[in-house]
C-alpha cells in the first residue's frame, strides 16, 4: 500500500442534506478538507481536496451527528506517492447518525480486452 499524498473528492447529496462542515478521518484522526467549494445541501455538490500524507488503513467522511444524510453519488481521485493517480466512482448510500462513510478503495486491478 503506497502512501496517499492527497485525494480529490466530488460528492453530490441527494434529497436529505448534511448539516455542518464535512471532515474526513484518516486512520481514526479527523482532518479538515482544503480547497472546498460547493456544499452538502439537498442536490448540492461538494468538491474538496484532502491531504492525509499517510498510509490509509481507513479513510472516511464523518457522518451526520443527527438524522440521515443521503449521498447520491461521489467520486474520488487518489494521488498515491510515486504512482499514477486513479479514480473510483461510488453509488448512492444513506449515512445515519451512528455511521461514517468509507471513501477508500484500493487501485482496481488492471482489466484487458480479449
Amino acid at each position: 500500500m503506497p502512501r496517499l499524498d492527497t485525494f480529490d473528492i466530488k460528492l453530490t447529496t441527494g434529497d436529505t442534506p448534511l448539516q455542518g462542515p464535512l471532515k474526513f478521518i484518516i486512520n481514526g484522526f479527523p482532518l479538515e478538507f482544503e480547497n472546498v467549494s460547493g456544499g452538502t445541501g439537498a442536490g448540492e455538490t461538494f468538491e474538496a481536496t484532502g491531504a492525509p500524507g499517510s498510509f490509509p488503513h481507513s479513510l472516511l467522511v464523518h457522518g451526520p451527528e443527527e438524522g440521515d444524510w443521503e449521498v447520491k453519488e461521489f467520486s474520488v481521485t487518489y494521488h498515491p506517492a510515486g504512482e499514477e493517480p486513479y479514480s473510483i466512482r461510488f453509488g448512492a448510500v444513506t449515512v445515519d447518525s451512528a455511521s461514517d462513510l468509507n471513501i477508500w478503495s484500493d487501485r482496481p486491478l488492471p482489466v484487458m480486452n480479449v
Partner: protein
Amino acid sequence: MPSWFSKVFKGGAAAPKPIEKKAPAPVARARPTAPKPPEENEKPKRTVVHAPILPDESLSASEGGDKIRIKARIEPDQQSCVILVDRPVLDGFSVWIPTAESKADSPLAEKLFEVDGVTSVLVHNFTITVNRSPLVKGDWESMIKDLGGRIREHLESEATVVSDSFLADLPNSEIIEAKLDTVIKTEINPGIAAHSGAISLSRVEGNTVYIEMMGGCQGCAASDITLRQGIHQAFREAVPQIGAILDTTDHTAGTNPYFTELPVGM
C-alpha cells in the same frame, strides 16, 4: 583509519561500557479484553457504511454487434486469471475442474486444458477462472488471448459447457448443505477455534457455496489462505461436485474487525 565500528567493538579508543542488567519490566498482556457494557454518557461506537463501487464506464462501453465480449483480469498472486464474459456461461450452478484428468466433466474446460500451463478451471456464472502452474513464467497476455479465443469459439458454437454425466451426478443443494454443515462443525470450526475464528454456511445455490467468516477470521489478513487452503480442500473432499466457494464476509465491517476486542463469551 579505523572505522567507528572497529573503534567501538574491537577495543579501539573507547571500549563500550558494560550494560547494566535490570530486571525486566512487567509486560502488559496484549490479549484483548471482552467489551465492557456501555456506561451512561458514553458515545456509541460509529460504524462504517460502504457505498457500491460503480463500474468503469470505459470498460463497459458496448462495442456493438453480436460478438461475444470478453475481458480478463490477472489476480494479484499472478497465478490465476479471471475471464469475464458478457453473458452467462453457466446459469444456476458452477463447475470446478481441478486437474486435466477430470476435464471430461466440461467440454469447455477440455479446450482450455489444451493451453500449456493450465492447472485448473472454475466456471461460475459470467466468469471463468483459470489457474496456471507456477512453473509458467512470463506475462499472461499471450496465454489470455489464447484462452479468450477458445472460450469465444466454444460459446459461439453453442456447444455444452458441462457434460451430461456431470449434471446427472450433481447432488441437490439440500444434500450439499447437510454434508458441508457437518464438515464445518466437526473439522473446520474446531480447527480455527484456536484463533477465535469460525465460519458459517450462508447458503448453497445449485452447487455454489456461500460462506461467512466470523470472530478472529473477519478482517484477518490470512483469511484468504484459510479459505483457499483449508476450507476449499475440506469442502471438496466432502462433496467433490461443488463448484465455486465464495466468501460473503465484509472484512472491514462492524465495530470489531481485525480483532481488536474479543467477542463476548470468548
